[in-house]
């Protein structure tokens, strides 16, 4: 199995208001097709780790590999392109562009990638929406959707460029149990059927228990993988 993500000796400090060693010697890998969850108490550094893995946070020590390529030290523009092509995000708050239609929201990263025509991207976007069962909402403004629907649109958006991995920061944290179940099922299907890797930060033990592997964190260290 090829490694999707590999973290080597990652350390991070917060310097404000005082020096705080938030991540300590983080080492782990995620293989292709793995469904991994990260658990830990609030403030243990799990979200901070996720943002480093997501390439958005570049202020750390250590090395990060994505598809066996060194990511650490690349320019912001390169990192933006890497995110665009390889990483899909799902956040706790759905973070859709509220003035755009559902379809446009899903299409934006695809259009930004700029390797397919607008028609093809639109076709793909419909396909992803169908996969998530919300194609009927495609033309609606994103702000008119319910929370569960929004999260599904966010997942569709994360899938549009067929990324290597999906990262989620408590994607079910803001949803009721029925919708949480839905999101879990979607993730599970994606993993089973499409062979997608998933890395999900969660507080939900039930959710974590059903993933392939759970990484437990405490005080900036990984205590079990």
């Amino acid at each position, binding site marked *: 199995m090829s490694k999707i993500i590999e973290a080597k000796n990652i350390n991070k400090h917060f310097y404000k208001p005082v020096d705080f060693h938030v991540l300590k010697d983080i080492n782990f890998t995620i293989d292709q097709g793995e469904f991994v969850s990260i658990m830990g108490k609030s403030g243990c550094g799990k979200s901070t780790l996720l943002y480093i893995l997501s390439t958005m946070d570049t202020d750390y020590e250590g090395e990060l590999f994505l598809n066996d390529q060194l990511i650490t030290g690349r320019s912001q523009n390169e990192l933006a392109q890497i995110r665009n092509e390889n990483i899909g995000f799902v956040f706790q708050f759905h973070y859709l562009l509220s*003035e755009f239609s559902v379809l446009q929201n899903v299409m934006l990263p695809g259009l*930004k990638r700029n390797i397919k025509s*607008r028609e093809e991207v639109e076709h793909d976007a419909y396909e992803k929406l169908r996969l998530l069962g919300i194609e009927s909402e495609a033309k609606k403004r994103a702000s008119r959707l319910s929370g569960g629907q929004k999260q599904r649109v966010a997942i569709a958006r994360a899938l549009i460029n067929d990324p290597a991995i999906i990262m989620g920061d408590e994607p079910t944290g803001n949803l009721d149990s029925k919708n949480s179940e839905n999101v879990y099922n979607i993730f599970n299907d994606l993993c089973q059927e499409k062979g997608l890797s998933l890395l999900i930060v969660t507080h939900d033990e039930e959710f974590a228990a059903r993933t392939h592997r759970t990484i437990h964190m405490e005080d900036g260290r990984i205590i079990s993988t």
Partner: protein
Amino acid sequence: MKYSIIFSIARTHLLTRKRQTIVAALGVTFGIASYVIMMGFMTGLNGLLDGMILNRTPHIHIYNELAPSKSQPIEKVSKYNEHKKIVRSVRPKRKQTRVRNANALMRELAALKEVKAVTPMVRAQGFYLAGSTQLSASLIGVDVLMESENYQLSDYIVGGKAENLATIDNGILLGIGAAKKMSVSSGDKIQVISPTGTIFQLKVVGFFQSGLADIDNIQSYVSLKTAQRIMGQSVNYITDINVKLKDMNLAPELSKDIEDNYEVNAVDIQTANAQFDTGSSIRTLISYAVSITLLIVAGFGIYNILNMLIYEKMNDIAILKATGFSGRDVERIFLSQAMIIGLLGGILGVIVGYFISLLISRTPFETEALPTIKTYPVNFEPMYYVIAIIFALVSTFFAGYLPSRRAKRIDPVDIIRGQ
């Protein structure tokens, strides 16, 4: 493709905030329209005022001035060198008023590359005979076609045609004041008596009005030949030579050369009309100052609106960055919003400015000084419209630059974690 998506995001942002967009664009419109109107009106007015004097004035005026000799005979006697000499009642030397060897001088001047046109002039004094009374007359003999071409003589003709002077022998373009005093109309004959007492009969071919009553009461135009005949002189008799240059600014230098090389007096236009240049440049300066002030105010409006927009759009910016839009893309999204506002406001401003200028140019404006002007002068120079659009884009670019750069630097992690 990549730009089209940036543009479509910018457009969506603008369209979902129609009122803010319109207010921002109207700020630009206001600034640009006033620039176009002010420049059109000011330069139109400048052109009119300059035209009243500058177009009518030769760049270099060559003539022979009667003046007392600069050195008196006693200066040449060396034994009085040590003494203080007082010569009383110095009189001008008797000399001819004509320019010596004028035709040769004109040919030489015309051959210079800086010179656009050289026109001869003959000044003749006399009296109009109106029944039993005599009105003093100053007749100016000109080549009327050259005069019309170079000094806009035809702009001051209020009856008849200037060109008639060239075709009708013994024609006269009578000053409107003198014409009224003598109650003559076009085609009538009048009599002029020369300083030597000879009476000439001249045919009125038209009237001219300079706007200055003193001139209109006395001055008239005749052909060169008629003026020479009244003065009883041959065709070589030329009292003044007027030179028009391609570049007016060369006049002081060239007039000095002419004075040095030929025994004549030469006055350049800058010396003769120094005050006009100052007037026009100050008016232009004021127009620019006012327009730029308005644009700066509009710019602050755009700056404010974009800043607010970016503050509202923090989440969107974070999301765009998380999904692979680079800082530069985000910067471009907001900058292009500023530029769209600038372009729309600018185009609208130019259109509004044009129509208001049109309105001003149709407003009646009667002036004695310029009989052919009936409405306010407005300059519709396309250059000002081009500059206006460039102004709009440049000012909105600067107004949008700082907020856009702020958007570029927003760290998505801060925003997402902050929730």
